[in-house]
C-alpha cells in the first residue's frame, strides 16, 4: 500500500512543478464557470421557462454538475499511457515491481483529488459572489445513489480509457487518433457531458442506457437532481456494476495479449 501512497505523493508534487502553468490552468477553469453561468442564465432569464423538463435552477445545476463530474470522472492522467507504449517509456515501469494498472489508477486519483480540491474552493467562492439559483439535493437516498454511481463511473472510465490507450501495442501510431475518436468524441457526446441525454429520441435513449456511457455523467446527475425513480437507480447501479466487471476483465485480457504482441523494436 505504501508503494501507491508514494506514487500518489509524487504525482501531486509533479502537478505543482510548474506553478505559473498551474495558476493559468485554474484561471481558465474559473473563466469556464463564469461563461457557462452567464450563458445559461441568459437563456433561462425568465425563471418560469422550462425546456425538456429543465427549469433555470435545474439546468444550472446540470451544467455545473457536468463540470464537477468532468473533473472527477472524465479527467485522468492515464491518457499518457498510449504515448508511453509507443515511445517505449513503459519499459521502465514494467521492469519494476509495481502493478501498472494500480500505478496509473493512483496517478488518476491524485490528479482527480487535486482537480476536485481546487474546483471546490473556486466553486464556493463563485457561489458566494454570484448567488445562483441552485438545486441542492437533501434526500440521503439520492445522495447515496449519486455517490455510488460516481464511484463506479470513475472506475468504468478508467477501464475504458486504458483499453483505448492500449491500441499502440498493436498499432504504435494509432494512439492519439483512437483516443480522440473514442474518448473525446464518443464519450463526451454519449455521456451527457455536452447536452442532457433525455433530449434525444426515446429509442436512442433506451439503446444508450445499455451502454456504459450515460452512467459516466448523465445518470449520476439525474440521480442528484432527483429526477428518477428508485427502481431506475437500482437498475443503473446494476448496469454500472456489470460494465465495471466486463471492462475490467477485457482490460486485463487485452493487457496480457498486448504485452505479448508488444515489440518495442529499436526502443
Amino acid at each position, binding site marked *: 500500500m*505504501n*508503494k501507491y*501512497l*508514494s*506514487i500518489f505523493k*509524487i504525482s501531486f*508534487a*509533479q502537478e505543482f*512543478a*510548474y506553478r505559473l502553468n498551474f495558476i493559468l490552468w485554474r484561471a481558465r477553469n474559473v473563466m469556464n464557470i463564469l461563461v457557462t453561468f452567464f450563458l445559461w442564465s441568459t437563456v433561462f432569464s425568465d425563471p418560469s421557462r422550462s425546456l425538456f423538463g429543465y427549469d433555470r435552477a435545474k439546468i444550472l445545476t446540470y451544467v455545473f454538475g457536468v463540470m464537477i463530474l468532468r473533473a472527477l470522472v472524465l479527467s485522468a492522467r492515464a491518457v499518457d499511457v498510449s504515448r508511453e507504449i509507443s515511445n*517505449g*517509456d513503459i*519499459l*521502465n*515501469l*514494467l*521492469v*519494476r*515491481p*509495481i502493478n501498472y494498472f494500480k500505478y496509473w489508477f493512483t496517478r488518476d486519483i491524485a490528479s482527480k483529488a487535486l482537480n476536485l480540491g481546487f474546483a471546490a474552493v473556486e466553486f464556493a467562492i463563485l457561489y458566494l459572489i454570484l448567488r445562483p439559483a441552485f438545486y441542492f439535493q437533501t434526500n440521503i437516498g439520492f445522495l447515496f445513489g449519486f455517490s455510488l454511481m460516481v464511484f463506479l463511473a470513475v472506475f468504468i472510465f478508467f477501464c475504458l480509457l486504458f483499453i483505448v490507450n492500449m491500441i499502440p501495442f498493436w*498499432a504504435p501510431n494509432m494512439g492519439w487518433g483512437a483516443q480522440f475518436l473514442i474518448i473525446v468524441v464518443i464519450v463526451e457526446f454519449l455521456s451527457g457531458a455536452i447536452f442532457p441525454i433525455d433530449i434525444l429520441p426515446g429509442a436512442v435513449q433506451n439503446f444508450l442506457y445499455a451502454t456504459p456511457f450515460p452512467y459516466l455523467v448523465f445518470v449520476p446527475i439525474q440521480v442528484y437532481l432527483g429526477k428518477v425513480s428508485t427502481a431506475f437507480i437500482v437498475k443503473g447501479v446494476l448496469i454500472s456494476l456489470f460494465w465495471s466487471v466486463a471492462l475490467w476483465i477485457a482490460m486485463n485480457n487485452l493487457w496480457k495479449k498486448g*504485452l*505479448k504482441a*508488444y*515489440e*518495442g*523494436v*529499436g526502443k
Partner: protein
Amino acid sequence: MDRAIIVDRLVKNFEVTQKEPGFTGAVKSLFSPKKKHVHALKGISFTIQPGELVGFIGPNGAGKTTTLKTLSGLLYPTSGFVEVLEYDPWDRKPEFLKQIALVMGQKNQLWWDLPASETFELNRAIYEIPRREYEENLKEIVDLLEIGKLISTPVRKLSLGQRMRMELTAALLHKPKVLFFDEPTIGLDLIAQQKMRDFIYEYNKKFGATIILTSHNMDDLVNLCRRVIVIDEGRILFDGALDELTEKFAKEKIIKATLSNEGNIADLEKIGKVKKVSMPLVTLSVPRSATAVAASELLQNFPVEDLIIEEIPIEDIIRRVFRGELRGK
C-alpha cells in the same frame, strides 16, 4: 545456484509494418499494411555465472537489446528457454524484479520536473527497501558517483552526465543481483564515461553482481569485460575471453621491424602488406599462418636491427565487429 542466467536456443521474431514516406504512403499502409518479418534472434544459447561481467558486442540491429529485453521480462520469446536467477523473466514476479535492474542509456525513469531525490524515494517504496538500508545504499552510491550536491536539483536542470549518474543511482538503490546495461555511456563526455565505468567495475567487484552490458564504446569493453559475446544478425559468432577474440578473428599478425638503412625498402611489399613506414620503423601485416616465414625472410633480406611480432590491436577487431565484418567467418 551455479548459473545466474541461462539462455537456450532463444528465438525472437518481430512483425514490423512497413511504411512508405509521405501522406499517400501513410494512407496506403492504413488500408493494406505491408508486414515484414524480422528475425531478431535466431536461436542463441549461453550461460552466465553469478558475478560475471559480460560484454555484448555487435553492429546495430544485431539483437543485443532484444536479448537484454527478453532477459528482463519485457519481450516474450518466440521460442526457446530463458532463466534468470531461476525465474522465468516473462512472469515478472515481484521477487524477481526486485533482484534485477535494466539501465538504458537512452531512456529515463527519473521524474523530469522533480529533483532526483523524489524518484529515489519512490523507488524505495516500490522496491520496499527498509528505511535504514535505503539510507545506507543511497549514501554509498551517492559517494561513489559524487552526486551528493545534485540530488535536490530538478532533473531537467542537470547535464546529461549528471542525469545518467542519477539514473544509475535510481536503478541500484535496491542492490540488484543482476544488472543489464544498454549503452550506459552513450552521449557522455570522456570524464563522465570514465566515472560510469569505474562505478560499474566497483559495483561488480563489491557486490558480486552479475552484469551484462552492451556498448559501442571500445573503452567500456576493453576496460570492463573479460568475457565478450559477439552477436550479429541474431546469432552468436563468438563467446569467450576478450583476448581470444583476436586469435579467433584476426587473420593477420603485425610485424614491426627497425631497419638500419632504407636500402631495398620497396621489396617489403613481397613479404606482406606495408601498413606504415616511418624510418627506421616499418610496420607490416602478414597472414597469421605465414608469420614465421615472413619474419625469417625479413631477417635474411633486410638490414633488420630489431623485430617484434604483435597481435592486431583488440580495438581493430572490435571495430570490425561493429561494422559487421565478421559475418560468415
